[in-house]
């Protein structure tokens, strides 16, 4: 199979190499494109998909192997501008900073039991995401998410380790008499919470 080795090349080179490589083979013939960089791999997959080359990928150790088929009719938009698929994480469209606010111990309105489950799923999923909030603020019933023995507190702890500031409303932990059970974050006051909310790029309310 015609092989295009893009290892060690940075965007947009792998895209151009793949585009040129496909010009060397006949319609319906396959090429193998090798990449050692996750961003390049993702860019290649977007490019080849739009081109109509049906890319199929597999991971071999640190390498990504993509098999693509030369289409009978390539999409001219993709074919003429492989460079446009060069996206660098956090580069082209800078992610804005955001703050997550837990207003209650649940996510959304409706069935309370479902709301409990959803917020647990959300926080456990959030820790695996690339674009993390700068702050997570918990007030009113939301402070219960920070209490010891909950998997939400574990997830919040992991988010804290990744640099997210966890803020727990002091008045609220006092009201619910749970101050000594807060196992993660910093107990704070309404001045700080108001300042963080005022300065946030945007706020995500659970």
């Amino acid at each position, binding site marked *: 199979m015609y092989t295009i080795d893009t290892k060690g090349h940075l965007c947009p080179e792998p895209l151009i190499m793949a585009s040129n490589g496909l010009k060397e083979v006949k319609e319906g013939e396959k090429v193998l494109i090798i990449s050692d960089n996750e961003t390049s791999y993702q860019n290649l997959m977007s490019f080849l998909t739009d081109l109509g080359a049906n890319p199929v990928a597999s991971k071999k150790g640190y390498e990504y192997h993509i098999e693509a088929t030369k289409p009978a009719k390539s999409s001219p938009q993709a074919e003429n501008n492989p460079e446009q698929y060069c996206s660098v994480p956090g580069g082209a469209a800078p992610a804005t900073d955001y703050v997550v606010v837990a207003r209650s111990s649940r996510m959304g309105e409706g069935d309370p039991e479902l709301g409990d*489950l959803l917020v*647990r*799923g959300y926080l*456990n999923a959030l820790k695996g995401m690339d674009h993390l909030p700068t702050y997570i603020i918990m007030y009113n019933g939301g402070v219960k998410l920070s209490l010891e023995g909950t*998997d939400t507190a*574990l997830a919040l702890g992991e988010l804290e380790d990744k640099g997210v500031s966890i803020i727990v409303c002091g008045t609220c932990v006092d009201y619910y008499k749970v101050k000594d059970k807060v196992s993660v974050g910093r107990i704070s006051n309404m001045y700080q919470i108001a300042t963080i909310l005022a300065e946030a790029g945007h706020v995500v309310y659970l």
Partner: protein
Amino acid sequence: MQLYLFPNVHKVMKAEKICSNIGIQSRVIPVPEHISSECGMCLLVESGDVDKCVELFEKNSIPFEVYHEG
């Protein structure tokens, strides 16, 4: 780590309670996209006597699937 998948969210809740009642903490996480693209939740059991949970799932007729992760 073991992931326990259930046919619906009600079974997830029931299973979670069963484990928690016998002192086994599980974490609720969305089903990883490489397993299913549907919006579902599953349980991640990191430690504890998982066999006891499984025994109780079977006793309570809760169908489940196990995936090994990581």
